[in-house]
C-alpha cells in the first residue's frame, strides 16, 4: 500500500519534472533561434510601420507565443503542434515567401501586406481573422514575423503594384477578359467554367510539395487575399508566391487586367454588376459563344 503510494508520487513527480523540462527546452529553442549570427533581424529592435502605427517585435513575440505558436511553431517554420492536422499547411516564416503581396513576385511583401493578411485571415485555410487583436498588437506581430528570416535585414520589400482606376464594367470588357482567360491558360487549372477543375488542377503542389487546390469561382467564396475588384486585380498580377499561381504583371496590361477582373466576376454566383450583365448577354448570345477549353484554343490558332 505504502509502496504503491510512493510509486504514484514518484511517477507524478517525474512526469511534472519532465513536462517542465520539455517546456523550458521549447522556450529555450524559441529564444535562441532565429540565430543572430546568421544576420537574422533582432527581436529587440525589429519594427513594423503600418500607417501611423509602429509595431515592436519584442511585444509581438509574446503575442506570437500565445496565439500563433500552435500552428506556426516555436521556430516559425510552420511546424507547430497543430500543423499535422492542417491543410493547407501553416506558413513557414523562415522562407519569407508570402502569397498575399502587393509587391512583385520574388520580393518581400510590405508591412501593410502582412498586417492585412493577419487582419483578414485566409478564408480558404485554417488561418482566422485576427481582428479581435488591436491594430497595434497586429503591428507587433508583423514586426515579430519579420525576425524569422535574415532576408528582412538584407532586402527591402518590392515596389507595390500600381493599380490604376477601374475601367467601366461593360459586356465588351467582359468578353475581352474571357479571351484573356482562354489565352493565358487560366482554365488549365481553374477549369473552363472556373470550377477549379482544369486538366492540371489535380497535379498542383505548393513549394513544399503538398497538394494544393486552385480557387473554385463557383463557390463564391472570398478570395484568399481580399474580396474587392482591386484585390482580385492584385492577386493575379503579383501572383501567389510559394503556390502554382504565377504573376501576370509582365504580360498583362492594366486595361487587360481590368477586363480579366470583370470576366472573373461572372464566374461567381454573386449579385455583381458583371454577373448580371453577363446573364443578360447570354440570353441572346449564349449559343454563339465558343466554350472555353482546348477546342477554343485550337480554333484561335
Amino acid at each position, binding site marked *: 500500500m505504502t509502496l504503491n503510494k510512493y510509486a504514484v508520487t514518484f511517477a507524478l513527480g517525474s512526469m511534472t519534472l519532465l513536462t517542465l523540462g520539455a517546456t523550458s527546452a521549447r522556450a529555450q529553442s524559441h529564444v535562441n533561434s532565429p540565430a543572430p549570427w546568421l544576420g537574422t533581424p533582432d527581436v529587440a529592435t525589429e519594427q513594423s510601420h503600418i500607417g501611423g502605427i509602429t509595431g515592436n517585435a519584442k511585444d509581438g513575440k509574446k503575442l506570437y507565443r500565445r496565439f500563433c505558436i500552435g500552428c506556426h511553431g516555436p521556430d516559425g517554420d510552420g511546424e507547430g503542434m497543430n500543423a499535422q492536422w492542417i491543410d493547407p499547411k501553416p506558413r513557414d516564416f523562415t*522562407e519569407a*515567401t508570402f502569397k498575399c503581396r502587393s509587391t512583385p*513576385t*520574388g*520580393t518581400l511583401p510590405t508591412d501593410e501586406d502582412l498586417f492585412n493578411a493577419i487582419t483578414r485571415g485566409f478564408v480558404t485555410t485554417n488561418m482566422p481573422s485576427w481582428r479581435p487583436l488591436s491594430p497595434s498588437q497586429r503591428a507587433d506581430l508583423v514586426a515579430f514575423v519579420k525576425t524569422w528570416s535574415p*532576408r528582412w535585414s538584407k532586402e527591402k520589400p518590392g515596389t507595390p503594384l500600381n493599380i490604376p482606376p477601374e475601367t467601366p464594367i461593360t459586356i465588351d470588357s467582359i468578353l475581352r477578359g474571357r479571351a484573356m482567360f482562354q*489565352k*493565358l*491558360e487560366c482554365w*488549365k*487549372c481553374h477549369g473552363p467554367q472556373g470550377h477549379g477543375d482544369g*486538366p*492540371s488542377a489535380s*497535379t*498542383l503542389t505548393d*513549394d513544399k510539395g503538398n497538394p494544393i487546390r486552385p480557387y473554385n469561382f463557383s463557390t463564391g467564396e472570398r478570395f484568399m487575399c481580399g474580396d474587392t475588384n482591386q484585390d482580385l486585380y492584385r492577386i493575379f498580377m503579383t*501572383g501567389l*508566391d*510559394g*503556390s*502554382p*499561381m*504565377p*504573376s*501576370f504583371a*509582365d*504580360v*498583362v496590361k492594366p486595361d487587360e487586367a481590368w477586363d480579366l477582373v470583370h470576366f472573373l466576376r461572372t464566374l461567381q454566383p454573386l449579385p455583381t454588376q458583371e454577373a448580371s450583365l453577363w446573364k443578360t448577354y447570354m440570353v441572346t448570345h449564349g449559343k454563339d459563344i465558343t466554350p472555353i477549353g*482546348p477546342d477554343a*484554343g*485550337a480554333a484561335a*490558332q
Partner: protein
Amino acid sequence: MRLKYFVALAFVIIVSAAMVVFAQPPAGSGSITGKVTYTGTPMKMKPIDMSKEPSCAKQHATPLLTQNVTTGPGNSLEWVIVYISAGDQGSGAPSQAVRYDQKGCEYTPHILPMEADQQLMIYNDDQTSHNIHPLAKINQEWNKSQPPGSPPIDTKWEKPEFIPVKCNIHPWMHGYFVVLKTPHYATTGSDGTFEIKGLSPGKYTVTAWQEQYGTKTQEVTIAGSEAKTANFVFTATPY
C-alpha cells in the same frame, strides 16, 4: 629606427598580399575528361503523355521520355553536371547570356548550368502559355506567366544553387538551373562523357551532380597543361 623597420615590413606585407590578390593566373590549358556511369537498376525513362496539350504533342514524333535519370549505352548517364567545386578562383560572371527555351512543352536544355550573376534569358517558343516557376530556396523563388509571343524573361541568380524549375500548367515539364561560382563546368552528353577545359595548374575538387542521385566528388591535381581523367559512378535506385 624601430618605426622604419615597421614601415618597411608593412610595405613588404602589403605588396606581397596585393600580388597574391591581383595576380591573374594565366588562362590554363589543363583539362579533365571522363565518363559518368551507374551501377544498379535505374528508374525507367517513361514516355510523357502530352495529349492535354495537342500543340506540344504534335512537335514530338515519338513521345518525349522522362529525364530525371537519362541513361545511355554502357550504363552511361546523361545530364550530369561536372564542375570544379573547390580550388578555382571565381572570375566574375561572363558577359554572354545563357539561354533557356520552352519548346514542345519541354525545357531545352533539360539542365542549364550557369555562373552566379550571369544573365539568363528564358524564351517561350510554344503556342501555349507557360508559367515558369523556379523553386529556389537559397535564392528567391518566383513564378511568372509567359504567354506565347511574349518577350524573353531577362533575369539572373545571385547565389550558387541547384534550382528545380517547373511549369504548373504542364506538370510534366521539369528542369534545373544549376548556378555555380566557377566558369569550369560541363554537362555529360548522351554517352556520359564530359570535358572541362581551360584549367591552370592546381589542386581541384571535381564534383559530379545528378538530379536524382546527388553529388560525387574527386580530388584532381593538374600540373602544366595536363589532361587528367576523372570518372564517376553513381549507384542507381529503381525509384
